């Protein structure tokens, strides 16, 4: 790999111990994947911001970088933390976890991190442009950056993201290169009634596409141009857990894919699939282990709810009461919570008995329940180590289940 004088200097420790460690890790990664050089990147989204995800080993590295004097050379936003900084005690998060999370937050902020604490930084906090090279972790955010905005990012591994923020560069391979952004497998959605799809339906569609495409770049036709940002969020999150999808070309939506030909960069797709309704129904059944909806816990906000979603939920639930044997938890960013609070939406939701949690992820809140209901395909698929049964339903159906009535 070609290294500039500055790269070499960092590698040799001339910029201090932090950049030396960070650069050596990234150069090694670049060598493994045949990168020709280190690419300047414009911002980073750090997935490894939760102690619960990076553990003691990760905390050790981040504190080492910070205490050695390393500072971020580019703007870096943060993924959810292990705690809601305001009410972790109320959520029964153990104090030893909170203590370590506070240490991690201190070290990250000392290096210059922007404390967004959200998995949907593209809605609040992060800066993205078409064609920009960025370096993001968190699979749903990576999918959104590539698919919706047309910024370019590989899927960064935890801690590689912190290292990247320290040196402001990432090895040039994978999705930074034109040839790897070529659409390979074509999905036609003509037979689906997409105009009736809600966010959860788009999650099911994303999961199906991901599970068929796996490592290939999918191209999907027929997605309405007026698809909501929250629906795109749901699609991207689900396609990343269904397969390894970090970029989908949604023709007419994805900036670099106005047509199939443009998405495939002149070549023909290797495979063509017409999506049938019954395929999506099968996918839905795979994701929902129970059809009966008597959940003990209902979680919304995976990825984090937007202001619009919070307001929508507030409108649906206004004046109702959450059933006594049900717990409703809504996860969002501090930024969205603050805005929605100013609109009265947080009070409206919490006066029903629901709770709006910021800064963190459902993963870190002790839930102690067997049956979950969620509108998130990502959560339905990844939470089965915590729950015996999972029901998937739209935000409206989740709200109905919470109050025990048709709304």
């Amino acid at each position: 790999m070609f290294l500039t004088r500055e790269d070499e200097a960092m590698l040799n420790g001339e910029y201090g111990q932090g950049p030396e460690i960070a650069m050596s890790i990234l150069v090694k990664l670049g060598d493994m994947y045949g990168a020709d050089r280190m690419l300047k990147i414009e911002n980073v989204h750090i997935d490894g911001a939760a102690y619960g995800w990076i553990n003691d080993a990760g905390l050790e590295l981040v504190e080492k970088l910070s205490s050695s004097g390393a500072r971020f050379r580019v703007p870096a936003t943060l993924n959810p933390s292990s705690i809601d900084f305001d009410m972790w005690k109320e959520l029964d998060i153990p104090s030893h976890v909170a203590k370590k999370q506070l240490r991690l937050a201190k070290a990250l902020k000392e290096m210059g991190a922007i404390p967004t604490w959200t998995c949907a930084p593209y809605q609040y906090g992060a800066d993205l442009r078409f064609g920009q090279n960025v370096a993001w972790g968190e699979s749903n955010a990576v999918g959104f950056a590539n698919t919706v905005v047309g910024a370019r990012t590989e899927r960064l591994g935890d801690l590689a993201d912190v290292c990247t923020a320290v040196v402001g560069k990432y090895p040039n391979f994978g999705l930074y290169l034109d040839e790897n952004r070529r659409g390979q497998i074509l999905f036609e959605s003509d037979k689906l009634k997409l105009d009736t799809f809600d966010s959860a339906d788009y999650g099911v569609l994303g999961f199906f596409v991901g599970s068929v495409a796996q490592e290939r770049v999918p191209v999907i036709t027929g997605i309405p141009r007026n698809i909501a940002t929250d629906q795109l969020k749901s699609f991207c999150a689900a396609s990343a857990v269904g397969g390894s999808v970090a970029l989908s070309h949604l023709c007419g939506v994805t900036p670099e894919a106005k047509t199939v030909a443009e998405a495939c960069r002149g070549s023909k797709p290797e495979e063509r699939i017409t999506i049938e309704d019954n395929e999506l129904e099968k996918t839905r059944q795979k994701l929902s282990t129970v059809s009966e909806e008597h959940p003990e816990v209902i979680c919304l906000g995976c990825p984090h709810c937007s202001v619009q979603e919070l307001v929508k939920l507030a409108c649906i639930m206004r004046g109702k009461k959450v059933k006594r044997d049900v717990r409703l938890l809504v996860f969002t960013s501090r930024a969205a919570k603050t805005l929605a609070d100013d609109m009265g939406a947080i009070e409206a939701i919490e006066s029903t008995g629901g709770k709006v949690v910021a800064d963190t992820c459902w993963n870190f809140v002790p839930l102690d329940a067997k049956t979950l209901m969620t509108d998130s395909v990502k959560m339905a698929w990844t939470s089965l180590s915590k729950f015996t049964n999972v029901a998937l339903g739209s935000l409206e159906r989740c709200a109905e289940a919470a109050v025990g009535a048709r709304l």
Partner: protein
Amino acid sequence: MRNIVIRCVSVSKGVSEGKALVTNQPLCLYDSLDPKSGYIVNRRHELYGENVAGRILIFPYGIGSSTSAATILEASRCNKTPSAIINLKTEPILAVGAILAEKLYGKTIPIVHRPETNPAEIIKKHDLVRVDADAGLIELIGHSPDLRGR
């Protein structure tokens, strides 16, 4: 009988020998592996209930979360990593985990990918396997006892 040898491409160097643990199902280490115990805890995965520590772990490729890098690093801190990993295609997220484990704890996890034939079709659970990531070779040294008896 000569040992079966499969040529492959090295991701992370080192040489290791151990009993195989094999799946054809893609694996997300973050939601499937408990790094402190080495057990696979995802009930949706066919390796559910198995322990990866000290095994030659064979799976096609990783999916999902960016966190898998930190999962491997924490498993390394807790001495619960596989002794080697064989993929059809190794994602950079896993490679980052291996690089960090070496950098922070001086522990090498040999990782190879792009094998000339799919090892999951040849190597079965408990088979004794040697991974030479320096030379880019996977070697089937011995069959598991339950197969030897047949």
